[in-house]
Each structure stands twice: as structure tokens, then as C-alpha cells.
């Protein structure tokens, strides 16, 4: 992957090519032949005036005439691109695919960037038109959850502090800056009760993986990591109109169940996880909906240190969306890159001891589509 952050001198194709080359070289196969390219971007057309990023990336990587496509699923584009490539290979249609998640978004003035983000996230005629933004939705959801379970906003701050601490150990992270609970609790309010430190930043960056059939992966000099299961589920866009208890992300529960069922594993088997913390509340809620902790207990688990790198279930060792950064279409792919590094023992200072099984979840919008993945090292 590239470092996530501000890249004023690189356009989206340059970022994607940089990440793609790294993945191709990392595969450890001199005669690697890529037969399909999947590029995940949420809004390359609106941010960069380029819709056809799939074929453009394939061309710049010297991979023509292979098939190439852009996959869009807003902030789940990066994992959805992996899912589509995985299915093509599992179905016997391709042998080797390159998946690149990429986004370039920091170059636009704030007003223009906000409009593009709104087009991905809030409903045009019933939310955006009223001035509602994603943080305002996250704020209402956060307050409901905190009130229901008798928790203060200090628990949201703990997510940000942990993830910044992990980001400091990740050379690819957007933020490599420690913050304290006090820093977080005093950061400006965006929408009551959530603050600037409760929201993932906007970032530029790209991340890439090579997926192969089992036969071909076996010829690599690197230890293959296997996708054991993936799930993808959807729910209503207007989160307050969804079925369920009002404190969960239904699409994530379904996607996770499917991924674990296909993998023939359970949440207890997971050694390390990357969850979708677009807002700090979501790391807590995701950890419950995936099945790591009971509903309402995710915050206490965090407080007890159980989700730290040295804890029993490390979450977001990369720094998460909060500190690693959130180039919208790259995030889902970067989560898988972090897990592969963890499962191969290549995570440097962030290394989780004896990590064999990893889990990632990535969503679109505020959970109207969720993709879950279970990985295991051979």
C-alpha cells in the first residue's frame, strides 16, 4: 500500500500503480501473470473526473489486454473489489487477479469534497437536502447507544486514543500522532455528542492485493493467506428506518454470519480484526455485531484493554480508519493488507503474537451494505 495521507503530487492512477506494483512484487513469483484487474474507488469520477479507473490502472501497470473493471460500493469499494475477484477465481474464471483500492480526495476544496462525500453517504432528498451530514447521523446513533448502555463519551475517546496509539506504530498511517483521552474529550464538537476525534479523516491513498487460485499461490515464495469466507449484505439506507434493536448494524451481522459459516469458524477463532471505525462508535458496535462481545459490552472490553495489540482480541492494529486514514475506496483493501501482514508475521512493531486467523469488516454509508472476510494463513 502507499502511505495514506495527503499526496498533492500524485493523482489517483499514480497512487493505484504504486500500490499495484508493490503487490505484484510482493507476490514472489517471477512469471506472475495477472488476468484480471479490479479497482475499487468510491467516487473517482466526482473527485478526479475519471470514471474508467479499472482499465486506466491496468494499462499503466502494463497488464493489457486483461479484463479490468472499476467496482463501486462507496466506502466498501475496497473489500467489494476483493469479493468480486475472489468469486471470479473461485468460480474458475480467472487464475490471478490484482485488486487495488484507491481514492484521491484531499485536493478538492472542503465544500466540493463535502458534496462528493454526501453523494456517497446521505440520502439526497430526505437527508442531504435538510443539511444532515454523516457525522450528524453518527451523532444520533452514538447518543442512543451510549444512553441505552449507560456509557459516557469517554468510551468513544478510548477508541480514538487506542487507534492513534496503533497508528504511531504503522509507517503507512495518515496520523502518526499519539493523543490522550483529554485531547479527545476537548476536541471540537461536530454534532452533539461527537467530536472531531470521533470521525475518520479524509485521506488519499491506495492499497493492493494479488489473489490467486490455490495452485498458483502454492508456487509463491511468500506464505499464502487464504480467504476462507466472505459475506456481503445490505440494509436500508436510512438507518433509523431499519428493523432491529436500533443499536446494531444489521447488514454487518448477516455479512459476518455468512463469512464465518463459509469459513466453518466462529468469532472465537479470530486472532486479529480490522473493523470499520468511520466513527468511533462503530468500532464498539462492530465488535458486538460481528460476535466478539455481547451487545452493550464492546465498550467495557475496550476499557479493559482486551482489544489492544497485546490483548486477547486486537482490533485495528493498523490504526483503523481513524488513524490509518480513510481514502474511501482504499480502506477495505488496506484492511486486508494489514491482516495479511499480521498473519504472515510481517507487521513489525504492531505484530500480534501467533496470529493465524483474521477478520475484516467494511461498510458502505452508515451500514447500508457490509462486507465481511475471514482469512487464515496456511
Amino acid at each position, binding site marked *: 500500500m502507499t502511505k495514506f495521507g495527503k499526496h498533492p503530487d500524485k493523482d489517483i492512477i499514480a497512487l493505484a500503480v504504486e500500490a499495484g506494483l508493490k503487490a505484484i512484487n510482493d507476490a514472489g513469483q517471477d512469471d506472475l501473470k495477472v488476468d484480471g484487474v479490479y479497482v475499487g474507488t468510491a467516487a473517482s469520477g466526482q473527485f478526479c473526473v475519471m470514471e474508467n479507473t479499472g482499465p486506466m490502472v491496468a494499462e499503466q501497470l502494463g497488464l493489457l489486454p486483461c479484463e479490468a473493471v472499476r467496482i463501486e460500493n462507496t466506502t466498501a469499494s475496497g473489500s467489494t473489489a476483493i469479493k468480486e475477484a475472489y468469486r471470479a477465481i473461485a468460480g474458475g474464471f480467472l487464475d490471478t487477479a490484482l485488486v487495488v483500492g484507491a481514492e484521491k480526495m484531499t485536493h478538492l476544496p472542503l*465544500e466540493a469534497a*463535502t*458534496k462528493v462525500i*454526501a453523494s456517497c453517504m446521505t440520502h439526497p*432528498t*430526505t*437527508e*442531504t*437536502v*435538510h*443539511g*444532515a*451530514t454523516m*457525522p*450528524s447521523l453518527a*451523532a*444520533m*446513533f452514538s*447518543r*442512543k447507544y451510549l444512553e441505552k448502555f449507560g456509557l459516557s463519551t469517554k468510551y468513544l475517546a478510548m477508541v480514538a486514543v487506542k487507534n492513534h496509539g496503533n497508528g504511531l506504530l504503522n509507517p503507512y498511517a495518515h496520523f502518526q500522532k499519539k493523543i490522550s483521552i483529554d485531547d479527545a474529550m476537548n476536541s*471540537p*464538537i*461536530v*454534532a*452533539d*455528542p461527537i467530536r472531531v476525534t470521533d470521525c475518520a479523516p479524509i485521506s488519499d491513498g491506495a492499497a493492493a492485493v494479488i489473489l490467486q487460485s490455490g495452485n498458483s499461490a502454492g508456487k509463491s515464495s511468500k506464505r499464502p493467506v487464504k480467504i476462507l469466507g466472505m459475506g456481503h449484505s445490505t440494509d*436500508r439506507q*436510512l438507518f*433509523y*428506518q431499519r428493523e432491529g434493536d436500533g443499536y446494531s448494524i444489521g447488514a454487518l451481522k448477516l455479512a459476518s454470519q455468512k463469512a464465518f459459516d463459509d469459513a466453518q469458524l466462529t468469532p472465537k477463532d479470530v486472532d486479529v480484526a480490522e473493523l470499520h471505525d468511520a466513527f468511533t462508535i462503530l468500532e464498539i458496535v462492530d465488535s458486538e455485531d460481528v460476535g466478539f462481545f455481547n451487545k452493550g459490552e464492546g465498550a467495557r472490553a475496550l476499557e479493559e484493554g482486551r482489544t489492544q495489540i497485546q490483548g486477547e482480541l486486537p482490533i485495528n492494529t493498523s490504526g483503523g480508519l481513524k488513524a490509518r486514514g480513510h481514502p474511501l475506496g482504499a480502506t477495505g483493501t488496506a484492511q486486508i493488507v494489514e491482516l495479511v501482514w499480521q498473519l504472515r508475521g510481517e507487521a513489525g512493531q504492531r505484530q500480534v503474537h501467533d496470529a493465524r486467523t483474521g477478520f475484516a469488516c467494511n461498510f458502505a454509508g452508515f451500514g447500508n451494505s457490509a462486507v465481511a472476510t475471514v482469512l487464515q494463513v496456511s
Partner: protein
Amino acid sequence: MLPERKLRASKCSGCGEISYPARLVCPKCGPTLADKVAQVELSSQGTVVMWTKLRVTPTGFPSPLTICVVDIDGVKILGTAVPDSRIQDLCRVRIVEDPSGKFPFQFAA
């Protein structure tokens, strides 16, 4: 007092589900029963189920802005409160016109 608004929604005669915004297909019954969905008018009063005071508002919107989700006839609808409205969970609100024309409607406590 600001004039009240009645929003248009859709209702499925098969299962009774009301949808806002109006839909062609009932979310519960699915596409095979789409001929059972018809337009209805909602009442102009509801109850606040959640809200926030948004301080970082998009360009062209006042700050702060009180965003609310209101239950009207069982369906949850998002909107903003008229300035200086005292909003909290469970308070009763009316849907009213916005005289400035900026907002399609607002909620007044």
C-alpha cells in the same frame, strides 16, 4: 403559527407498511406484490425519537442546526427544527412550512 405540511408517503395494502419517501415497491412484500402500493398522506404531527445539534454544517446551512428524526404515523422521518425550538426525545412536534423556502419542511415543538 407556521402553516402545517402533510408529507406524501406510500402504503402497501397487502401488509400495511408505510414508506417515506414513497416507493413503488413495498420493502416488506417485495417486487411481486408492487401493485398493492399506493400513495397516502401522513399526519402533520409526530414524536421526536432522536436528535442532534449539528455544529459543522454544510455550506449554505445555518450553524448550529438541530437535526431530528421524528416518528410520524409509525415511519421515521428526518428533518430540522425551526430555530429556537426546544427539542428533546419524545417531545411532540408539528411538520411546518419553512417561510424562507430553504428547507422542504421543518419541525416545530
